[in-house]
């Protein structure tokens, strides 16, 4: 692997929660959030230039949730993700090059080009292909937790979902089943105030998803999703509880997506004032300011440059990678190919 790619690894280097998040660790959190931010920004341009096919749902603004939660997970823990998975994937440790190549639709992508942006994932780092059906992960994750319980491992599963998904029947069935079975699951709701264009207050009379937790007999907690240290702390406690066998926890991260819902969204449904209010709480800027007392500016700048170099490397890797063979489209529907030729 090239130097650039190694420096650029988003993988957490230590998975255990330590109460004391020292400057080195904070610097790492900063790097990994920046990693996601720059990935999102670069792929958007590549998309506009026509190099990346399909569609994109971006997570600028929500990086603290992905990074803070995944920082307290082990490589052997699993996550499920959504139509907006880039941040979760990079935070859980999906290789940057293979994630980039997947968006390019290349054979070297983490799903061989069969998944694309909305199904990013890699079992080798504990991430299912992301599930682009809103609420889809909320029931499937119970099976991950059930398997861990039956196999008596101490693994934990985290289900990322949007506040919009909390109005799916799957939210109810998944949470209730996880609760009665005491499954080792953290339900991590990213409440970014909107489901596509629809504001949450228009579709739920209770403003906080976490307030539904008591109805299932589980602990719920509201967390500042724009503060990576707060996210990490709350996620650390929830994961520890789940790992210890105390059953599922519902965490609600108040956050905001700075970009549109998907490519080409002009965001006509929200005010510029509201956007300004939230961009003022940018989790990356916030941590950078917080770090200013302990870390020199040049160190942070050098880190940004490393992140950028890793992006350059990954983009070049994706560009140079071969396309999948057309006939590869016909494999992997089953363990053994059974597809029948069409008659024409």
């Amino acid at each position: 692997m090239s130097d650039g790619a190694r420096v650029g690894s988003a993988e957490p280097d230590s998975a255990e929660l330590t109460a004391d998040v020292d400057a080195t660790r904070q610097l790492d959190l900063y790097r990994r959030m920046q990693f996601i931010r720059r990935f999102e920004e670069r792929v958007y341009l590549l998309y506009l230039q026509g190099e990346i096919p399909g569609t994109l749902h971006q997570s600028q603004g929500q990086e603290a949730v992905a990074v803070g939660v995944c920082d307290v997970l082990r490589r052997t823990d699993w996550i499920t993700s959504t139509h907006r998975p880039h941040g979760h994937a990079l935070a859980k440790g999906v290789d940057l090059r293979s994630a980039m190549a997947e968006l390019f639709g290349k054979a070297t992508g983490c799903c061989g080009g069969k998944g694309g942006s909305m199904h990013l994932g890699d079992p080798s780092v504990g991430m299912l292909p992301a599930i682009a059906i809103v609420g889809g992960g909320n029931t499937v994750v119970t099976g991950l937790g059930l398997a861990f319980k039956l196999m008596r491992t101490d693994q934990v599963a985290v289900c990322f979902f949007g506040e919009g998904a909390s109005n799916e029947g799957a939210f109810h069935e998944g949470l209730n089943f996880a609760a009665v079975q005491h499954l080792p699951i953290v339900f991590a709701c990213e409440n970014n105030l909107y489901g596509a264009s629809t504001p949450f207050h228009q579709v739920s009379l209770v403003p906080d998803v976490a307030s539904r937790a008591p109805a299932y007999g589980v602990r719920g907690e509201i967390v500042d999703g724009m503060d990576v240290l707060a996210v990490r702390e709350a996620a650390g406690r929830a994961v520890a509880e789940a790992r210890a066998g105390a059953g599922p926890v519902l965490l609600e991260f108040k956050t905001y997506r700075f970009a549109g819902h998907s490519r080409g969204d002009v965001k006509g449904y929200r005010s510029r004032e509201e956007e300004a209010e939230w961009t003022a709480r940018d989790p990356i800027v916030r941590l950078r300011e917080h770090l200013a007392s302990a870390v020199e500016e040049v160190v942070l700048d050098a880190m940004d440059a490393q992140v950028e170099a890793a992006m350059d490397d990954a983009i070049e890797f994706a560009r140079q990678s071969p396309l999948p063979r057309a006939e590869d489209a016909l494999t992997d529907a089953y363990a053994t190919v059974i597809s029948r030729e069409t008659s024409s």
Partner: protein
Amino acid sequence: MTVAAAPAVGERRLTIAEALREAIAEEMRHDEKVFLIGEDIGVPGGFGGAFGVYLGLTEAFGHDRIIDTPISEKALAGAAVGAALMGMRPIADLQYADFLFECMDELVNQAAKMRYMSNGKLSVPMVLRCPVGTANRGAQHGQCPESYFVHVPGLKVVCVSDAYHAKGLLKSAVRDNDPVLFFEHKLLYGSKGREQAGGMDLTAHVPEEEYFFPIGKAVVKREGTSVTVVATHMSFYRSLAAAEELANDGIECEVIDPLTLLPFDDETIFASVRKTGRLVIAHEDTLTGGWGAELAARVAEECLFSLEAPIRRVTSHDVPLPVAPVMEQTVVPSTARIKAAIQRCCEG
């Protein structure tokens, strides 16, 4: 082509319910990753599943491996999918196949597609048992929805109609690395079915020794030269009855139980049609878009010039199921309707 051997007299005969229970117990003993999940399957003093298939299993295997769920089909199907993704081998139970529509996302979007989306890195080795079939229970407890799933690449679809194949196929399904929907007809489980099926003996020889029957293989259960009849579940038995009656008129039906609808054993059907030149398809699922339409299309594509008459389908009429027996029996394919279709096919 597999021709079922007639069991020797005095051999052990089981009902489908008994054969399924035996298959489940064997697989649970064989592999600790096999577990059961469903509603009302292991509750002490309960039913042992809607059709008693699980009776006694909780005593043998304990509640760790027999998981009673809330009435949450999405959660139970999702739990089966997720556990299978982690390497477990769940056998999930749906009480009634009509409830499949509650968990279509988990089956069609998740179970069927995870292997593909992961570029072959993940497997979903789960079985979902789905009782189907008309039994005076009306529009929402009697459907035969197997054709919906024949349309889903990534799923396998099995329909069993006798104890021997039920056991052999369930054991193969549990060990299969892809998700298998296992459709069983409510009237064929045991003794009750025997009466309602017109006094037929629905038990079959099930050897004591372990065996498997492969997914994707049809069985010629009655050999004949005049016409090929392909039928599942109750329609299969009614086809056999029609075949017996028609034998008196010199029409020799070759009756085939496809057993697996996806992947379909085309070759066994094609070979038979090339021999007989005629094809009748019978199923309790409704007509339009039913699996019979797919089979007819395949035979038309591959065997058109062997056909001496138009293909005939005998299915449930395209209406929801009524309860009143007189209406219900009008809707589902009767022996008389199957017999008439065969006669018509043989006239052409």
